């Protein structure tokens, strides 16, 4: 029961936020992150996840996404300062912060039974938000 309530609370939090809250307002963050995927809204991951992710850009889900020190510091600080609320459950089996937004509970709830196999195949990856959310780069994800 408690777990269920938490999930609902997380879901509500995710769905009621406005597009403005999901805008990436920092230009360097937008430029660098969006070279490979959309620049994900900072509030979609807790601060601990952003810290861990930005500390591991040498192996960023199999890619080298390293930045020079100045850019790294700038982007990390922006992401952490604007991160989502802390989430004690956003850890993996070893207790390390979850790095993939798509592994967070609210994301799974939002997408469960929503995405057909054909749609997912077309998108190719959970990272490809714009395949289904045309306005994702403007912070608009409520168009399902």
């Amino acid at each position, binding site marked *: 029961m408690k777990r269920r309530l938490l999930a609902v609370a997380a879901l509500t939090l995710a769905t009621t936020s406005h597009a403005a809250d999901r805008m990436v307002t920092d230009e360097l963050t937008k430029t660098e992150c969006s070279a*490979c*995927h959309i620049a994900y809204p900072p509030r979609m991951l807790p601060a601990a996840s952003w810290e861990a992710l930005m500390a591991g850009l040498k192996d960023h889900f199999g890619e080298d996404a390293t930045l020079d020190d100045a850019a790294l510091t700038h982007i990390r600080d922006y992401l952490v300062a604007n991160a989502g609320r802390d989430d004690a459950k956003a850890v993996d089996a070893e207790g390390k912060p979850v790095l993939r937004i798509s592994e967070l509970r609210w994301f799974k709830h939002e997408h469960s039974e929503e995405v057909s196999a054909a749609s997912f195949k077309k998108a190719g990856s959970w990272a490809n938000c714009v395949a289904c959310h045309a306005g994702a780069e403007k912070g608009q994800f409520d168009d399902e």
Partner: protein
Amino acid sequence: MNRTLAVVFSLGLSTGILADAVAAGPGQDAVIADYAEKAKLADPAFTGFDAAAGKAFFFAKHVGGGADTPSCTSCHTEDITKPGQTRAGKTIDPMAVSVTVDRLTDLAKVEKWIRRNCNSVLGRDCTPKEAGDVLFWLASQ
């Protein structure tokens, strides 16, 4: 005279040939000249870049990098006049300079992507010669 110019001049004839062979603009020439300087520093026997070698390197299946990215073509496709796609699904503008005219004009950007992509594809840095050969070939396309 700064060091860059001195080295470029010391390359002499070979650099002149490079400039003639590249159909791209001064922006690409400057980036390639910088890589020529790096190549010369790494190997005093360096005489110039080789477009055919660059093309072969671009198309080759390498080992040591990520399982999903054994080749430059894994993301850039086998037609560099067409857009590529990142593993996360984002479109990559064509690599051919004739199609994407501002390609290879920003040295910092080129260095960043050479560093990243060589590591993703080969699991190591490219030598300046390897990278320069590819840049030289792309600039001519």
